[in-house]
């Protein structure tokens, strides 16, 4: 009996539907916890002249007030993977650089009093000119945010692969466009939460937080706190209320609360509120892209030049500027394009700092790339499907190495595309569209091809440095993850994982994998997903990000389970006097393959290892407790030519989406959303479906409704859920999901990551569909979200919305 691949019900659910989930704000792990409230900057850019905290400190119930100067005295600025000397502390020091930046922390006996005290703090500011737009930040004329840097450009790299010059020389047409992708968040419904306790006797910090890695950030935090790494113990709660990358941005607050606990001598708890979250937590970058395509008349793309500038906000914060490089290895998407030039730039502006978010870099990247496929076909007078097919990789080309070094492990992109076209009746639609146009109805169909990278290689982040800069330090590679499978003396199986799930059902899938390996019922297995950096099996790459559980986390679990299995087989082999190779493990016992009557129960084999070690075969240790660490050899560090395989597996998504646009109101109605997926072997179809729908809803939100908006002075405009619009149930269209399975040849279970593909595809596929619908009106979408006012302005050629 195999449990992998079955739609098992989730083991997490019983506690979550009954109110027994344990989230960050539910924890009270220590006595005498006091509560924090944070005073935040109302200015986008200002000098702090003086902070008056006396009145606040006098308020009964207040323990103390901490400001940036005190924090800076006890910490170092956070390290970041670029060479410019940006000083980033978890609280403003001397200057504020975005609306919502922390300026002072009040600690009081409860949150109500702490917030009362905030209103008693007086801060004198001297306002400075803000920088809001990417293109302003690129200009030397703009006000400099960080004097020590001398410019608002904090990372700038050039890449050249193949022979771009020849490609452009040999082109029949060169097509140039510019696109703008907005700043969006993923707004988990649970906000950030931290409990921090400093113990002077050990000079150590224990910090509980709904932080899910990457645990590279553990080293960033210990550097800031100036403690040896084992003096920062991070513990995560059993349940985290969603993240989609955003909660990796809680780490500055972990450091801040740690230092506040140290200064004031009490354990402190801070739970972020929604306004704080929207204004100052984390988000994706907004990006301006300039793209040039060299094409032949038949639609063959010979080469691409891409220049893009990401806005990382007021400070560049780890792991930024990785948003620029996450898609570097799949920069040419699903296409056979060997000549590529990339110019990647990160700028700082007076907006909130950015970080991981579902799709990380993908939505920004595929928006220009997949818009170009439609623009090229239009320019050449070809059907867009013809242009896509002309360039789309074929099954025979796998494994395929991209110009930048990505190694696409498996796929059948044409099969996925054909399945979509059949499913939507492409030819029939084209007829229907013509009829509709005649009747003044604007129907459109959009497509998007997305290569979905999963399981990040630690090495890709170092692309921010030049090969010469990289050569000066230890190369970075791999994607290590650990897991421990143990069996106690009574036969109880426990699995410890370090993938820090935030709702993806890792406990369930872990139980499925171990159940298969050890021949037991998954319901009998206990999975511990809480991370504790002093007891969990973790490594630098651990955590929940880049869809890494299916290709990597699950593989670590599989390997640890195999170790336990092998040990049990050896023990049984000595008991039965049969070579281990002739034994099988199933239904709670180890038996002889060719003589199933002969066997020993699992409980007996386990019991021997604990209760009677003298009966163990030579060389076998007592106890059953095996840890495995797993990485993939394809995750190598970048070479001196900037060739890197940034992810370990690459799935595929093909979207075909039909919309209708009301040209009187500018409103877009999604009629049908068809999405074809290839994520290799699917581990649990229920969870797969949920991940796809969730990722799609995020992409849809970014396409249609969501934007962290700022005015010309850098004032933040979307501080509540009344202003920052997330899709609700009534906004989700009919979605048809279909699968093909091209198992990954490089992971033990054949699985690839998924759940980010439609976050990457939905913004561009909807932009393509709207552009297609409005073809008779010559409207071309080059910015998001597709709000009615924007579309109406485009249709009526009125510049009411500034880009």
């Amino acid at each position, binding site marked *: 009996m195999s449990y992998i691949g079955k739609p098992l019900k989730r083991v997490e659910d019983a506690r979550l539907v009954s109110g027994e989930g344990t989230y960050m704000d539910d924890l009270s792990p220590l006595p005498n916890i006091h509560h924090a409230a944070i005073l935040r900057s109302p200015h986008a850019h200002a000098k702090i002249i003086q902070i008056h905290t006396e009145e606040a400190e006098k308020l009964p119930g207040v323990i103390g007030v901490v400001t940036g100067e005190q924090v800076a005295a006890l910490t170092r600025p956070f390290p970041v993977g670029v060479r410019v000397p940006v000083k980033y502390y978890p609280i403003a020091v001397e200057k504020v650089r975005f609306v919502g930046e922390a300026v002072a922390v009040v600690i009081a006996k409860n949150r109500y009093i702490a917030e009362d005290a905030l209103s008693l703090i007086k801060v004198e500011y001297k306002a400075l000119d803000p920088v809001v737009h990417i293109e302003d930040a690129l200009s030397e004329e703009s006000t400099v945010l960080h004097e020590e840097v001398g410019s608002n450009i904090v990372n700038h790299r050039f890449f050249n692969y193949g022979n771009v010059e020849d490609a452009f020389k040999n082109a029949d047409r060169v097509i140039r466009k510019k696109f703008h992708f907005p700043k969006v968040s*993923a707004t988990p419904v649970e906000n950030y939460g931290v409990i921090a306790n400093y113990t002077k006797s050990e000079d150590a910090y224990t910090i509980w937080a709904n932080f899910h890695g990457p645990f590279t950030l553990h080293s960033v935090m210990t550097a800031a706190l100036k403690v040896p790494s084992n003096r920062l113990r991070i513990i995560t709660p059993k349940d985290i209320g969603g993240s989609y990358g955003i909660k990796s941005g809680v780490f500055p607050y972990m450091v801040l609360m740690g230092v506040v606990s140290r200064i004031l001598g009490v354990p402190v708890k801070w739970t972020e509120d929604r306004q704080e979250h929207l204004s100052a937590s984390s988000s994706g970058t907004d990006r301006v892209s300039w793209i040039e395509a060299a094409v032949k008349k038949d639609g063959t793309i010979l080469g691409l030049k891409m220049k893009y500038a990401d806005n990382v906000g007021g400070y560049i914060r780890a792991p930024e500027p990785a948003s620029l490089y996450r898609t570097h290895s799949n920069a040419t998407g699903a296409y056979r394009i060997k000549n590529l030039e990339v110019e990647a730039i990160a700028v700082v502006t007076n907006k909130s700092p950015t970080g991981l978010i579902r799709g990380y870099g993908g939505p920004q990247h595929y928006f220009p790339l997949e818009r170009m496929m439609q623009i090229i076909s239009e320019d050449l007078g070809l059907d867009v499907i013809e242009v896509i097919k002309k360039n789309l990789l074929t099954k025979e080309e796998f494994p395929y190495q991209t110009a930048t070094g990505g190694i696409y492990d498996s796929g059948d992109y044409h099969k996925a595309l054909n399945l979509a076209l059949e499913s939507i009746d492409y030819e029939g639609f084209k007829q229907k569209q013509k009829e509709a146009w005649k009747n003044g109805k604007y129907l459109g169909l959009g497509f998007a091809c997305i290569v979905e990278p999963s399981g990040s290689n630690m090495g890709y982040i170092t692309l921010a440095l030049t090969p010469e800069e990289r050569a000066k330090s230890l190369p970075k590679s791999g994607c290590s993850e650990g897991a421990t499978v143990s069996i106690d003396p009574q036969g109880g199986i426990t699995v410890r994982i370090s993938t820090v799930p935030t709702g993806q059902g890792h406990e369930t899938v872990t139980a499925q994998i171990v159940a298969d390996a050890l021949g037991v019922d998954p319901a009998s297995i206990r999975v511990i997903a809480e991370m504790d950096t002093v007891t969990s099996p973790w490594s630098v790459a651990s955590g929940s990000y880049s869809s890494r559980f299916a290709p990597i986390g699950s593989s670590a679990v599989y390997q640890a389970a195999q170790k336990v299995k092998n040990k049990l087989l050896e023990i049984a082999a000595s008991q039965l006097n049969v070579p281990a190779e002739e034994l099988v493990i199933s239904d709670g016992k180890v038996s002889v393959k060719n003589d199933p009557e002969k066997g020993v129960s699992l409980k007996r084999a386990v019991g021997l290892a604990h209760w009677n070690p003298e009966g163990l075969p030579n060389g076998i240790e007592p106890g059953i407790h095996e840890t495995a660490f797993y990485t993939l050899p394809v995750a190598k560090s970048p070479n001196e030519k900037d060739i890197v395989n940034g992810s370990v597996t690459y799935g595929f998504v093909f979207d075909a989406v039909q919309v209708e646009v009301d040209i009187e109101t500018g409103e877009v109605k999604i009629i049908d959303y068809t999405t074809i997926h290839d994520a290799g072997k699917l581990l649990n179809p229920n969870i797969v479906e949920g991940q796809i729908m969730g990722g799609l809803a995020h992409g849809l939100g970014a396409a249609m409704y969501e934007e962290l908006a700022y005015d010309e002075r850098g004032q933040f405009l979307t501080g509540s859920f009344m202003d920052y619009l997330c899709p*609700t149930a009534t906004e989700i269209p009919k979605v048809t999901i279909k699968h093909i399975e091209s198992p990954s040849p490089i992971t033990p279970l054949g699985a690839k990551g998924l759940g980010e593909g439609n976050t990457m595809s939905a913004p561009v596929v909807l932009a393509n569909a709207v552009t297609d619908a409005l073809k008779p009106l010559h409207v071309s979408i080059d910015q998001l979200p597709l709000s009615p006012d924007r579309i109406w302005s485009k249709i009526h050629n009125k510049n009411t919305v500034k880009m």
Partner: protein
Amino acid sequence: MSNLSVQDKVKISFSINGREIEGEAEPRKLLSDFIREDLGLTGTHVGCEHGVCGSCTVLYNGKAVRSCLMFAAQADGSEIQTVEGLAVNGQEHPLQTSFTECHGLQCGFCTPGILMSSVEMLNSGEEPTTQEIKEMLSGHLCRCTGYKGIIEAIEKVCKPNACKEGEN
């Protein structure tokens, strides 16, 4: 009430999940905070404190309300039900079961609030259309599921005999 200062506590008593409680709270204390902090019932979650996300939804005299938009003092004398009160004698409420069966949750943070609004809908005795279920759900934010599993879970219990196809 108008003569009270911020710090003066008021006496509150109400029934929660069938149990009578008595307590004291500052007049400004939110019902959501009172339920979580004073009563220790942490199944009711707080996601926005401005009445949009719906995570803090509880039943107040049978009606689904945002407990973050009410003061604890306003609950005096009422009957409150939270997610902890849904199971009876250890038996899950049918909606709790259907949410699991239909994969109607992932992180589970929004789930208690959605369950409470769904219970109100079920208790109304009228069979909702799928559109009505979606409109009810539009008072809740879920960022994990894309709502599909949630809608199916509610349909399964609130309209068990309905044909799913063709209705929107």
